């Protein structure tokens, strides 16, 4: 009994330690973002703010300088939104269709196609930069939001296909056969039978792709120009633009603004995320 309590205590102590360890940076970011520069200079990093002010937030959003221009993160934020919605939608749709074909409508060589697609998971994206830039040049979509969407779709297909394919392998073939006997074809089976069963994996893929694309810095930096730069690039520029003093409160607020959408998506769809991963694990 005594040793049981002790081991409980140790388990909790370790868990709490790590929780604090991971939450501390967030705490520092949040508190710093609502402090004034005077307080930051004079006080302790961990101390609670004496006067809460959102001035840093509004500056980060609307008027902080990101290089020569001082428009805050807002235009970058909307660039990211314009990029992430089509990129997530298209890559997820293609992944679902790929997965459906590679699991339920196998053709000679489909296993090879799947194996080759999976190479996409192991290719470091840095090696793609030059060929991709050339390709985008040919296509005439370089340095545009369309170009960024294209890159993210191409690079996302491997993982979205893997997610859907592994999920669909768990759907019994008899179900597809039953629908075929019922007179349904390729698309009708997909829309009416398979897709309604895909909610968990759809959520997993949406969260995954949203997080990947929203947080991407490399492609955003390389494949976009002034008018189409995403928020990660904006944040980088904002933090690197030095005026007379380094405004930590503005930097922190900007970082949180950049992270908010992914946090929101995770909170909104997170329960499906865990459920979907578990379902995939058991069935796949």
């Amino acid at each position: 009994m005594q040793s049981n309590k002790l081991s409980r205590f140790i388990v909790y102590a370790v868990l709490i330690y790590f929780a604090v360890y991971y939450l501390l940076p967030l705490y520092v970011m949040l508190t710093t973002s609502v402090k004034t520069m005077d307080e930051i200079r004079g006080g302790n990093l961990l101390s609670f703010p004496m006067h809460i002010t959102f001035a840093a937030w509004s500056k980060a959003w609307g008027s902080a300088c990101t290089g020569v221009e001082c428009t805050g993160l807002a235009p970058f934020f909307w660039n990211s939104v314009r990029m992430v919605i089509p990129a997530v939608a298209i890559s997820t749709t293609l992944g679902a269709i790929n997965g459906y074909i590679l699991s339920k409508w196998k053709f000679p060589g489909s296993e090879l196609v799947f194996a080759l697609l999976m190479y996409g998971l192991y290719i470091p994206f840095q090696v793609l930069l030059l060929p991709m830039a050339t390709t985008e040049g040919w296509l005439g979509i370089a340095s545009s939001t369309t170009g960024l969407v294209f890159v993210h779709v191409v690079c996302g297909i491997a993982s979205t296909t893997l997610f859907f394919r592994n999920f669909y392998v768990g759907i019994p073939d008899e179900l597809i056969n039953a629908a075929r006997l019922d007179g349904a074809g390729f698309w009708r089976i997909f829309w009416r039978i398979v897709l309604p069963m895909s909610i968990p994996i759809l959520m997993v893929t949406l969260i995954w792709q949203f997080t990947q694309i929203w947080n991407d810095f490399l492609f955003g930096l390389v494949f976009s120009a002034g008018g189409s730069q995403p928020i990660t690039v904006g944040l980088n520029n904002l933090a690197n633009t030095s005026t007379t003093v380094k405004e930590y409160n503005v930097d922190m607020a900007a970082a949180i603004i950049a992270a908010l959408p992914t946090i929101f998506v995770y909170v909104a769809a997170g329960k499906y995320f865990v459920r979907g991963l578990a379902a995939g694990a058991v069935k796949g």
Partner: protein
Amino acid sequence: MGALAIKNVTKSFGDTHILKGIDIEIDDGQFLILVGPSGCGKSTLMNIIAGLESPTSGEVHIGDRIVNDVAPKDRDIAMVFQSYALYPTMNVRQNIAFGLETRGVPKKEQEEVINRVAKMLQMDHLLDRKPGQLSGGQRQRVAMGRALARDPILFLFDEPLSNLDAKLRVEMRTEIKQLHHRLKTTIVYVTHDQIEAMTLGDRIAVMKDGVIQQFGSPQDIYERPSNMFVASFIGSPSMNFIECHLAEQNGQIGVSLTSESDARFVPLKDGAKFAKRVGQEVVMGVRPEQLDVAHGDEMALGCKVMLTEPTGPDTMIFTRINGKDVTARVHPRDAKGPGEVMRLALDMGKVVFFDPKTQLRID
């Protein structure tokens, strides 16, 4: 032309031959059973009939047309799957309606069909539930309802009862048989359960290793199995195989039987048929019920009981004849305990003989 004809159908994957020349023909309204151990090719044959797989060679006729190149949906068939294959995101009503909908049946007519089927299978109260909210038996019922809604010329049942518990299985078996009596639609039914095969079928095709071992009526297959595999596969407890030596004594052809406490020469019923084989080894196939307690002074063998297994209506007696374990099915009142000797008589008019080498029945 019958309702279904399968002509010299083969199926191979490279060097693996799943089906090796299947020929089956049944009449309109018959109940065909495909039975055999797992891996015998029965499900593949079913899928070929359904059009879900295509044969390597041979022809499949449904009604009066060759359907080799006809898509599954155009074959006018309906199938009940082993896992039921109900669409999990649709309720029962939508499940039944789906096939009608894809075929462009008007909404009003769909409603009528759904109501007819629901009434026939007594599942009106389940129509608005999702498959996940149904018990195994109810799902089975819905799967049948979905097939019935289509009113096809051929029903295919792929091991439909194998996921149910024993009691429900017997109930549903009876229900399927009643349904067949009422609808008189041709049914092809795959099972590995020989009791289902015997109870349901008009015609049984016993399969093994991609070959039909025997095709005939249940009674025919039970009484006159064409080889030792069929003999042992159909019937429970299994047929006893007693190795013996054909001999002639006093002008009669018969076999010598030896138990642990007795030995006797038993003449065959139509010994003349076996005249050519005198002096050879044969395997005598005896159903447990063909080895019964001798009540009169007929030819009987004293056998020492090793073990008894009461089943209620009958008691199984385990003993040894010619060095082989043998089961006899006797009335419980006649059964004796282990260690005692019982006088058992063979029903020589019904026993069958097999060639030990070819395993085929000797006529």
